[in-house]
């Protein structure tokens, strides 16, 4: 199996790596233990933060899931554009990737959020989702491109020789296989995106981080607040990475002997 290497490091524990697996368990159990113990130890600070942020967690999830869904669609189109023989389609996709990759996410967030505000009136969460997925769509596009290109050309030839056209070949033969190669980097992007949603707190979207900052701003319990926030993010990404590792394993079904 060809591996494609995109993303900001292996967030997904490999199923064969026992060492990493145990590291995951230590982190997971430790995080949960702290999230239970700290509020008991000091309900007025740790406990109060934890009670303050649940709607922020919901917002973070909403932004993450909507953004990843949209980014996957944009990414698929962009990835297909990047390998397309249609010059204009190819150029547009490449241009998009170039532009997005050249601008820091935070700047894009600000830009799209406020630019969008001048054109159409959309709720802040929608604006945040559009901004996030616009950025991540470009990275997803590269993941899709690499994933599609990692599939042996013989697979395409076999399908074409049977009489499938290019679109059918992509749909029935290449993409179903590319998924398997694409999933690990997509999973990494997914987790990276979840973490990056903390940037939308700048846009006054009431996610985990903003809720925490609001709490800290009135209570001055900065240390306690950010301890809880860090633990909550960690717990979410740990669970996600485990789920993704599980999915990855299941997608491998047809390569096992």
């Amino acid at each position, binding site marked *: 199996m060809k591996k494609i290497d995109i993303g900001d490091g292996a967030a997904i524990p490999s199923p064969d790596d026992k060492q990493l697996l145990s590291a995951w368990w230590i982190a997971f159990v430790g995080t949960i233990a702290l999230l239970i113990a700290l509020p008991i130890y000091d309900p007025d600070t740790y406990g109060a933060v934890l009670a303050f942020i649940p709607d922020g967690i919901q917002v973070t999830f909403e932004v993450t899931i909507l953004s990843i869904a949209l980014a996957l669609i944009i990414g698929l189109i962009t990835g297909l554009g990047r390998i397309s023989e249609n010059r204009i389609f190819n150029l547009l996709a490449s241009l998009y990737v170039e532009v997005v990759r050249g601008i820091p996410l935070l700047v894009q967030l600000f830009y799209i959020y406020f630019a969008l505000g001048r054109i159409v009136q959309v709720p802040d969460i929608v604006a945040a989702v559009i901004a996030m997925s616009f950025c991540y769509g470009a990275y997803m596009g590269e993941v899709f491109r690499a994933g599609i290109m990692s599939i*042996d050309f*013989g*697979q395409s*030839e*076999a*399908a*074409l*020789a*049977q*009489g*499938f*056209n290019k679109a*059918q070949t992509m749909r*029935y*033969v290449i993409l*179903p*296989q590319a998924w*398997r190669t694409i999933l690990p980097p997509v999973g990494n992007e997914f987790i990276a995106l979840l973490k990056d949603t903390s940037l939308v707190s700048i846009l006054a979207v009431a996610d985990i981080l903003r809720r925490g900052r609001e709490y800290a701003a009135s209570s001055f319990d900065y240390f306690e607040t950010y301890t809880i926030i860090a633990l909550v993010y960690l717990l979410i990404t740990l669970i996600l990475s485990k789920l993704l590792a599980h999915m990855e394993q299941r997608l491998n*079904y*047809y*390569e*096992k*002997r």
Partner: protein
Amino acid sequence: MKNVDPIIAIHNVTKYYDRFRALNNVSLDIFPGEKVVVLGPSGSGKSTLLRTINQLETIDSGTIIVDEHNLGDPGEDIHKIRMNMGMVFQSFNLYRHKTVLENLTLAPIKLRKMHPDEAKSLAMVLLEKVGISDKAASYPAMLSGGQQQRVAIARALAMEPKIMLFDEPTSALDPEMIGEVLEVMVKLAQEGMTMIVVTHEMGFAREVADKIIFMDGGEIIESETPERFFENPSQERTIKFLEQIL
């Protein structure tokens, strides 16, 4: 046999890879039911010639007419023409994410709009024929090379083609598996299928071929019956090739 029209008519075909001339003014007629074996050293253009017939390779000049369809005619739908030609590759190229059975039924269901049940029963008949029906639910990665290639032949047959193209079907196989694949091909030949086979298997060529094409340097050097080709080669390059191989 030659009083009918050829099913494949190749005329003055030339093809370049950049500046390298892979095919040089090649002409060849193949008639229905004919078994043509293409021989030649590697790089002689024999695989390229085979692949131009279903347009996996485009040509730079000349014409190829398959079953009365001119491949160079922009009005022709190459995908439809390809449906009537089965192709077997050196590296099998089975759909890795599909079971053996699904490999056989995918194209008939999607392209021929065959009912899935019908496609399945046809597939089972074909798997029976290539002797691998017990592996219907397996994935390609679980099969040996020989088994995979037999599935690949069955997959091509599932579209009920008029012509079968074989591109070095045994070259990637371990020696002990070559026999089982050739056996299937011989059986197919006996049933009257039109076959074009690029191979290095001289025994198969001698046994099955109606006509041997010998290629070198992108040209057809000789086009003979097996008897005359093997017993009485006329061209110097043919003699050299046979000396090396036999």
